[in-house]
Each structure stands twice: as structure tokens, then as C-alpha cells.
């Protein structure tokens, strides 16, 4: 700890940080531009100037940049000194020389860091009255808008995009007054984190393009804390709504999970909520293939009661994208033994394996922040950028960790970003990636290994053996590979916080278990080996803990006549079941579905209930590290839409089972869940209950400056509607309520007086980059067993042999397209590739197939003609099949397939 003096008052701060960070942590208003809490200092903008004094006798002092000065013990500075205040106002005035001053028409207006800093420095009169330089804006694709005239050349965008996110297609051009930040020419930004430019850029150069289509200012948005539903990582988000339309998603800081950023899938995937394909009314089909008739809520419930009858021979199919509460309600409706998980058999097995690895072994689950702070990472079988994007971001940051440690002897402060990068040059810490095909992280990897899944298992097992796992050695490993395994083993062994990353997307259970072996062997050797397992959906983990059979089991029950009514919860079964299973489900006597979007399953259902999306209902989601997090309703949906658990509860009431479904509010159902299944005991404590009040008031979802309240509905009804009640949370659907900072799980937006932009975050943290005031939200449901006897997995698959007339199909994930909901959002849909088949060029040449040529793919249960795309990194005999893209059918991968050329008909 160090004592520093700010304007003659002593403050105790942590050692080793810079003055800007210390001042912001202490709550001072000190303006800055080029510094960013996640990107540290470069000292480029000169905005954070303070006056530093030698000792108490020094009255003259000298102006220094707070972000570049160590807050050493005894440092004396002044923020309020008139000279330094003039200096800061002057810096802003210079920045403003070429700034267009078009706040009223600027999409950043009202949440602009430049605006805030201008007001903060007190520069309020423009003296410059000459021609301004202007730039040409670029067309950067469907997600991000570019308006270069507003740039103040702080270089944050460039640093984020290139140094942190690993983008290559963005740079700074020209010089002096003309510096230009953009691409070499117009075109879609290639990096998967490009949307963060919107929050990173302190001005309106980069703004959300999807928001532009239905623009609303920050203070006019109704917001609530939420969780991203587009992959298994559970990033914290802030969705904003007005007039019943979800308008945008912003990042919600969580120290352990997503930090300051989101991926583009999570940021721009929200528009499915506004889709014209939404189901807004209960639908009844008197004949299964007949036309859909909208029916009233009561009629639909009566119909449901008739179908569900006594409850016998009813099975329920849950969903990995539905909340714990919704799945639990279905499980209660049908009974635990008749609840199925809505996942293919292979998916269930992978999920169970992953959870068991984290629950039964000694290696703890790594959060994203653990991964980012790791000094040696091994990735097995996951293309992280496409399956768990923000984890890819974290792993990219991890490559600096070890090297930053090594720069200590150069006496460079860890926060001096430019100096650190200068010292490091291209040196990166150990990151080993073993996957079937190239990944976007390869550019920072120490070494990559491309092989078929079975060979990856062999490699991982060799590694585990080298680390001391009690498993037989892998014989007949090629010499080079054995050497690589030794190198990787050594790097992991020497690391202080090694992390092994694996996941379910490769489809290989053995690979998961081999990854577990590696992490466990590290743990056994007293090296905190951490395991980070990627799961496909936002609530995969929760569904896994809830248990239940697979879709195949459900089909078996139908075949055996044990089920004649099937209730499907928020699940498009065509994404998890093959043709035969779908046909079987089609033929079942009654099919009831609850979902928000029309798809194959709702189209076949006799009765469909309009379910609420993540933005329209509360829910608890469990992310890939087992952290249960609460997501809150943002707005009240149109039509008859309501939360799935409410529909299921009403169905139970309709069939006369009130006693079992006595929950009327969200708190009651979470309490029931916690009681019924002890593993979920913590779920009811992860956020304050409905009765929570601050000074007797709720937490308002609408900011205190929310405009047009009395007129926004006037065209429909001149009477101002009463604010809607929220029986499920301590948040209110109005601007009335407490303006104090709520506890972290309830923070609906980041705003503080004088801090309208996202940078207000420092006012919500206990210290810069620390937890939010009140601690990290969410709670892990499972803990590792450090003392349990380790039971290593010792199976070893045979070496992969290419077959002469068959190909091993491995899954290829796409950040844009592979996830069901985001793919329905227009912006993301534009970036989604059309279905294809990936082959390596040499394999294709061997089979005499040209790029772009159509081939027919034949495998068990699948027959599809697809154009061929070359993926040079694929191993011999292996082909890639994109999964989940619209228009692709479900298959269990990896699997062998025959290819034949389409003969011209």
C-alpha cells in the first residue's frame, strides 16, 4: 500500500498502479481519453494531466500525465490546480478544433465520453471559426457505422482492434491533422469483436448500425441486467428497449466473466426478439398439418388441459436455451422420469462428461478472467473464436501474461502498454492449439497441431502421461508429435496458472476426458491446473445438472407406447434430432410446443404457446463454468406472450394440479427449484428477492431522464397508463425508483453524474478493474474435489486412418450462423455463410473436386448436396461440415460420410 496526497489530502492506494487509475478508483473526476481500464496507458492524449509536487515545500510543481506516472508512496499531486485545469481545458479545445460539434444528430450524444470530458474540463465556448478538415466515411458492414469526422485520434480503437482483439484489417492512415482510422478500403470488419469499437471509441466515430435502424438515446431506453443467450459463456449484458422493440445490447461489466467486452454475436444477435417470425398468440391446429388458428389464452389452456388430461403418458422435452425455471416447470408438469433434455444422445453424453469432469475431479473450472490471466494455455479441439468467442478473446490476452512477468526486470510498469508491447515485440507466452482445422487464434499460438479427433486424443493422452497421469504411454506416436507433447507438458508444468481448454463442439467424448486427464495431472502435481470446458448453449450446464434422458430416449418412450403427448419447451427439435426421430415425434398423438419463434417443431405442433424471450422474462442461466446468473426481464412483451414457466404453471392449474404448481412469482419458482433439487440451492440467493427495496423504493428500469413518458402512448390512449407491476423482481417498469447504486445483480445501466458514457463503470467498481461494488454476481453451483482420488481415463483410440472412399466429417462452427437465435437477426444473417462442405485442397484434388463444385454428402440419416469450399488446414481424409447454419440438417459428428459428385442432370 502507498499513501499519496491529492490536493493535500492523504489517500491510501494499492502499490504499483498509475495515478489515473488510483484517482479514478478513489472516485475523483479526472478526464482521460487514451487510457481504458482494459487497455492501460499509452499517454497519447495528454488529457489526464495533473500537477505533481516534489514534496510539501514545492509550490511550483510540474505537469505530468497521471496515466503515465506511478502512484508511488508519498506522491503529491493536485487535480484542482488552476494551471493544470487550464491545461486540460486547452487539450480539449485542441481536440475540438476539427470536431464537428454535431451532438444533436450524433448517435453517441448523451453517452459520449468526449461530451462528458468536455463538460468536466470546463471548455464550453468554441473560439475556432475556420474550415474544419473532413474525412470520407467507410462502409464497414452491417454491424458498425463509421463517421470519421468525429475522431479525436486517441488511438483506442486501433489498440483494441489490433493489439487486443487480434484484428488485421484495421489501421491508422495518413498523418498530422489527417490521421484516419479505418480499413484500407470499404468492407466488412473481419474481427469478431468489432462491435466493441462502439464502446471503446470515446466519440461517435463508431456506433451501432443495428441501433441506427431504430435509434433511441441511452436515456430513453428501458434497460435491465441480462445475460447473453448466444453461447455457453454467459456474458453479462444490458439490453435496451423502447416502444416494445429491443433496440440494442451493451456490455455489462463482470470481473470474472466478460470484463468490458462482448463478441459481435452477443452484441448484435438480439434482433430475433423483434422478428416478424415471433409467435405472439396461442395457436391451435385442429388437424396437425392444418392451418394455424390463433386462439384466446383461456381457450388454449382449456385445450391444453384436455390434451394433458390426467398427465399419464405425457413426456416433456426441455431445452438448453431455456432458463432453469422454465425447464424445472416442465419437469414438474410431466414428472422427473418423463422429462427429457431435448438434446441428441451424443450431445447429452458430452454434456454429462463435461460436467462430471468439473464436479468429480480436482481441477477447478476456469472463468474467462482465469483464462486471460493464465500463463500457459492448451486448447484441445475447440475453435474458440467460433464456439465461445469471448473465451478466444481471453485466451489471446493470456499470451501476454508470462512475458509481462519477464519484463519486470526491464523496470517497465505493467500498465505501460506501449512499453510492454515494445519490449515484447512478437514474443508471446505459451499457447498450444490442437484442433482439426486452423483457428483464428493460431496467429498468437506457440505451436499448433492439426489432426483428426482421434489423433488429438492420442496427443492429449501422451501429454497427460508426460505430466504424470497414471495412464499407459501412447505407443507409436510419431517422433515429432512425441517431442511436441513433451514441450507442451513442460510449458504447462512450469506455468503458475495453466489452463486446459476443451469443449463439446468437437463431438469427441474421449477428447474431453483426455483434456480432463491433463488438467488433473497438473493438479496432482500441485500446479493449479484449471479446466475450461466450452458448452454450446446459454443454459447447457443448467440443463445438464437438471438431468433427464436424451431425445433418443424420448423416441424410445414413444415407440414403446409410453408417451402419446409430447410437450416441447423452447426447442427446435430439427436442430438436435435426425430425420427418423423427427418423423416419430411428428406422428405422436399430441404435440404441444412453447416457443417464441416459428420453426419446424412449432409448425408441427397442435398447440403452441407464445413464450417470452430472454428480454421478456426473468431466468436463471448456468454458464460453462457452472456459474448460475440471473437475467431480468427488460420489457413487457406484446400480445399474449409470457414466460414459459408461467404457461406451464397455468397448464398445471388447468388440469387441476394447483398444489404442485403453487408458484405464482419468480421467487417462488426458484425457491421450489432449490428445494426440489439441492444442487440448485444457491439459485435463490444469487440476486435480491422481489421484496428488496432501496430506501423503500424499487430499482427503476427507466433512467431518470426518460423522455416522452406522458405522450408516448397518447396516440393510442390519452390516459397515461399506470406503470406495469413487476411481481418477479425488485425492478420497476418506470422511471420512478431509487437513484442509488443497486447491488451488482440488479444494476440496470452504468451512469453516474458527469459520466454518461460506458466509462461510468469506474463509479460502479470497488476499484478500477475490481468487482462491482457489492461483489461479483452469480454463484458457482459446483466445486471441484481437490482431495478425491483421481480416476484417470485410460482409453486410447487407434491412430486415425484416412479411408479411400469415405471422409471423416468433423464439425465446423461459425460465430455468425451456427447459433440458432442470432442467425435470425438480420445483421448477423448477412454475415452467415451459406451451407458448404469443407475439404483440404489436396484431398479435393485427389478426388478431382473443384472449389465451388457441388457434391452429394451421404451419411447415416443425411443426404445433402453442398458446394465445396477449401479449408487448407484440414488433415488428410477429414472433411468439415458447418454445423447449425440455417438450411443444414442435424447430424451427429464426427462421422464417416461418402461424397459423390453431382452429375449434371
Amino acid at each position: 500500500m502507498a499513501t499519496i496526497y491529492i490536493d493535500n489530502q492523504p489517500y491510501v492506494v494499492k502499490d504499483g498502479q498509475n495515478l489515473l487509475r488510483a484517482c479514478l478508483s478513489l472516485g475523483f473526476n479526472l478526464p482521460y481519453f487514451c487510457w481504458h481500464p482494459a487497455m492501460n496507458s499509452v499517454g497519447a492524449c495528454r488529457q489526464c494531466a495533473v500537477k505533481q509536487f516534489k514534496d510539501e515545500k514545492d509550490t511550483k510543481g510540474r505537469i505530468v500525465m497521471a496515466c503515465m506516472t506511478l502512484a508511488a508512496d508519498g506522491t503529491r499531486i493536485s487535480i484542482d490546480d488552476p494551471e493544470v485545469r487550464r491545461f486540460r481545458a486547452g487539450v480539449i479545445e485542441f481536440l475540438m478544433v476539427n470536431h464537428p460539434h454535431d451532438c444533436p444528430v450524433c448517435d453517441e450524444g448523451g453517452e459520449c465520453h468526449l461530451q462528458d470530458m468536455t463538460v468536466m474540463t470546463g471548455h464550453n465556448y468554441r473560439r475556432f471559426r475556420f474550415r474544419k478538415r473532413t474525412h470520407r466515411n467507410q462502409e464497414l458492414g452491417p454491424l458498425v457505422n463509421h463517421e470519421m469526422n468525429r475522431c479525436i485520434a486517441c488511438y483506442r480503437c486501433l489498440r483494441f482492434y489490433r493489439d487486443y482483439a487480434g484484428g488485421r484489417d484495421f489501421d491508422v492512415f495518413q498523418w498530422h491533422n489527417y490521421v484516419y482510422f479505418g480499413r484500407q478500403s470499404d468492407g466488412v470488419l473481419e474481427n469478431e469483436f468489432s462491435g466493441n469499437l462502439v464502446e471503446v471509441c470515446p466519440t461517435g466515430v463508431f456506433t451501432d448500425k443495428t441501433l441506427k435502424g431504430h435509434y433511441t438515446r441511452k436515456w430513453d431506453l428501458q434497460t435491465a441486467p441480462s445475460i447473453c443467450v448466444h453461447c455457453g459463456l454467459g456474458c453479462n449484458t444490458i439490453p435496451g428497449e423502447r416502444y416494445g422493440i429491443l433496440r440494442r445490447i451493451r456490455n455489462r461489466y463482470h470481473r470474472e466473466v466478460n470484463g468490458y467486452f462482448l463478441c459481435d454475436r452477443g452484441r448484435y444477435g438480439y434482433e430475433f426478439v423483434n422478428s416478424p417470425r415471433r409467435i405472439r398468440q396461442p395457436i391451435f391446429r385442429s388437424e396437425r398439418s392444418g392451418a394455424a388458428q390463433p386462439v384466446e389464452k383461456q381457450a388454449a389452456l382449456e385445450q391444453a388441459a384436455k390434451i394433458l388430461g390426467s398427465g399419464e403418458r405425457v413426456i416433456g422435452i426441455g431445452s438448453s436455451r431455456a432458463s432453469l425455471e422454465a425447464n424445472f416447470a416442465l419437469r414438474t408438469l410431466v414428472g422427473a422420469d418423463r422429462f427429457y433434455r431435448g438434446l441428441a444422445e451424443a450431445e447429452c453424453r458430452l454434456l454429462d462428461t463435461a460436467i462430471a469432469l468439473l464436479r468429480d475431479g480436482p481441477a477447478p473450472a476456469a472463468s474467462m478472467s482465469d483464462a486471460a490471466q493464465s500463463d500457459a494455455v492448451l486448447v484441445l479441439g475447440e475453435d474458440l473464436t467460433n464456439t465461445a468467442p469471448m473465451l478466444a478473446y481471453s485466451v489471446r490476452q493470456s499470451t501476454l501474461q508470462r512475458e509481462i512477468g519477464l519484463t519486470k526486470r526491464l523496470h517497465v510498469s505493467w500498465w505501460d502498454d506501449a512499453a510492454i508491447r515494445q519490449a515484447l515485440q512478437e514474443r508471446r507466452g505459451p499457447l498450444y492449439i490442437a484442433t482439426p482445422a486452423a483457428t483464428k487464434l493460431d496467429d498468437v499460438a506457440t505451436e499448433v497441431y492439426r489432426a483428426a479427433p482421434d489423433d488429438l486424443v492420442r496427443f492429449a493422452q501422451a501429454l497427460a502421461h508426460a505430466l504424470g497421469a497414471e495412464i499407459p504411454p501412447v505407443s507409436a506416436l510419431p517422433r515429432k508429435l512425441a517431442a511436441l507433447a513433451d514441450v507442451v507438458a513442460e510449458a504447462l508444468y512450469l506455468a503458475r496458472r495453466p489452463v486446459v481448454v476443451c469443449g463439446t463442439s468437437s463431438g469427441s467424448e474421449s477428447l474431453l476426458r483426455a483434456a480432463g486427464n491433463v488438467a488433473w495431472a497438473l493438479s496432482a502435481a500441485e500446479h493449479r491446473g484449471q479446466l475450461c470446458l466450452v458448452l454450446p448453449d446459454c443454459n447447457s450446464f443448467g440443463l445438464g445438472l437438471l438431468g433427464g434422458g436424451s431425445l433418443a430416449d424420448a423416441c424410445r418412450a414413444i415407440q414403446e407406447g409410453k408417451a402419446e403427448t409430447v410437450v416441447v419447451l423452447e426447442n427446435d427439435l430439427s436442430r438436435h434430432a435426425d430425420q427418423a426421430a423427427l418423423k416419430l415425434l411428428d406422428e405422436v398423438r399430441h404435440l404441444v410446443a412453447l416457443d417464441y419463434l416459428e420453426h419446424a417443431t412449432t409448425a408441427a405442433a397442435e398447440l403452441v404457446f407464445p413464450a417470452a424471450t430472454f428480454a421478456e422474462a426473468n431466468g436463471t442461466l448456468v454458464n460453462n463454468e457452472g456459474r448460475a446468473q440471473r437475467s431480468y426481464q427488460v420489457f413487457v412483451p406484446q400480445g399474449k406472450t409470457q414466460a414459459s414457466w408461467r404457461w406451464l404453471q397455468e397448464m398445471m392449474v388447468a388440469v387441476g394440479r394447483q398444489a404442485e404448481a403453487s408458484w405464482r412469482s419468480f421467487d417462488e419458482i426458484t425457491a421450489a427449484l432449490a428445494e426440489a433439487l439441492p444442487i440448485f440451492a444457491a439459485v435463490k440467493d444469487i440476486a435480491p428477492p422481489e421484496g428488496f427495496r432501496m430506501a423503500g423504493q424499487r430499482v427503476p428500469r427507466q433512467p431518470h431522464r426518460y423522455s416522452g413518458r406522458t405522450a408516448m402512448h397518447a396516440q393510442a390512449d390519452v390516459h397515461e397508463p399506470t406503470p406495469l407491476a413487476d411481481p418477479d423482481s425488485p425492478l420497476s417498469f418506470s422511471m420512478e425508483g431509487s437513484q442509488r447504486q443497486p447491488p451488482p445483480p440488479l444494476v440496470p445501466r452504468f451512469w453516474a453524474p458527469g459520466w454518461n458514457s460506458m466509462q461510468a463503470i469506474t463509479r460502479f467498481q470497488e476499484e478500477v478493474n475490481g468487482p462491482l461494488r457489492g461483489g461479483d454476481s452469480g454463484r458457482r453451483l459446483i466445486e471441484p474435489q481437490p482431495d478425491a482420488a483421481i480416476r484417470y481415463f485410460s482409453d486410447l483410440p487407434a491412430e486415425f486412418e484416412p479411408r479411400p472412399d469415405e471422409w471423416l466429417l468433423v464439425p465446423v462452427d461459425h460465430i455468425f450462423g451456427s447459433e440458432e437465435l442470432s442467425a435470425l437477426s438480420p445483421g448477423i444473417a448477412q454475415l452467415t455463410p451459406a451451407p458448404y462442405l469443407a475439404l483440404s485442397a489436396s484431398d479435393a484434388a485427389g478426388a478431382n473436386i473443384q472449389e465451388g463444385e457441388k457434391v452429394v454428402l451421404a451419411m447415416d440419416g443425411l443426404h445433402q448436396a453442398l458446394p465445396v469450399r477449401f479449408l487448407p488446414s484440414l488433415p488428410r481424409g477429414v472433411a468439415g461440415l458447418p454445423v447449425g447454419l440455417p438450411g443444414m440438417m442435424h447430424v451427429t459428428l464426427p462421422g464417416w460420410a461418402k461424397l459423390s459428385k453431382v452429375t449434371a442432370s
Partner: protein
Amino acid sequence: MTANDPNTRQNPHDLPPTGESAAKGPAAAGKKIAWVREPELGMAGRSYLMLFLQGLRTTLRHLLSRKTTVQSPEQRHVVPDPLIYRGVHRLNRDAQGRVKCVACFLCATACPAHCIDIVPAESPWPDRQKYPQSFTIDELRCIFCGMCEEACPVQAIELTSLYDLSGKSREEMVFDKAKLLSVFDQTKDAEPMTKGTGTFFGLPVSNEGTPGPAEK
């Protein structure tokens, strides 16, 4: 000014501090807080005599002054200066007859009665980004404070001197964009738009459009 004005700001912890981290913050230093005491009332103040006499004087003055009551509606009240009167709103048009509003939401935000509602859309014209797709003022909820007029950076919304605002239903008094533009058409000759004497961020603002950087 507000808490972020460097000249008056005393407590950087603008939000009520929570948790212990705040205790070490500058709020704890508690500097520059001056306690002000109410002045004591003297004998004259406590007897109310002076105040009573002052009140009587006002009454007398009005008894003797010229009568200003107008026999409305037979007689019409003449607004002395229509340009500063705060009556019904109008949405101004530019030289080409297009709505001048750029959908910035400043009027809606400034409105203390929250009675202005604007739905923006991307503008069909190249010289601006947004325009109001719909613009609604609930004239019954409006308190005619003129804050909207004051806030508008492009002089698109103005309060006219039309004061005899009435209607047969509440619905009728919800003015939409067309109606607000028609008020402009009715009043534009009698009350020309504010001339380009205003300044916006220190720049003179002309009526013919907002100043912007010249195209390169």
C-alpha cells in the same frame, strides 16, 4: 451548475457511497462544506406589520391602475410581442418545405411534462441523418414553459402566439406531426421564424440550415 462543474464540485463521489471503499475516498475528507444558519427575525419581522402594509399597497395600486381584463371571446387579446409569447407549438419547415427537425430528442428530454414524443427514422435526404417519423405533443399536458424551443439546436420547434387552444376531446389535443406543421403554415407569415441571431455552441446559426463542415 451541476456536480461535474470543476468550479463548484466538491464531492467527486456523486452517488451516495456504498461499501467501505468509499470511506477512503475524498468524500471522507469532507472539505469545503459551509453550514449556513437562517438569520434571526427582528421585532419588525415578527410583527408582520411591514408585510401587511406592503400587501395593502399592491392592492391599492391595482385598484387605481388601468384595467387590463379583456372581454374574451368577444374581444381578442392582442399579444404584445408574438415572438416571445408561449402558445401552441409549431414545427418549422425549411426553405424546401421539409420539416426542419433533425430528431435529436433534445426538446423531448428538456420537456418537464414529458409530453413530447419523437420516433426517429433515417432521413430520406442527404443533408441530415435522421428526421422525425412521428412527432407528438400532448398539448393538454404541456405547461407552455418553452423549454423545448430553448433546447432545439436548429430552431425547428417554436411556440407561437396562438393561445386559444381548445378542442372537444382529449384525443384532439394530441398534436401529431402534420398538425404541428400545419400550425407553422398558419402562423409563418404573422410570426416569421427566429432569425439567424442565435448561437449554437458559439457558432452563429442561420435559419437556412445548420452550419456544417464544407465537403472536401
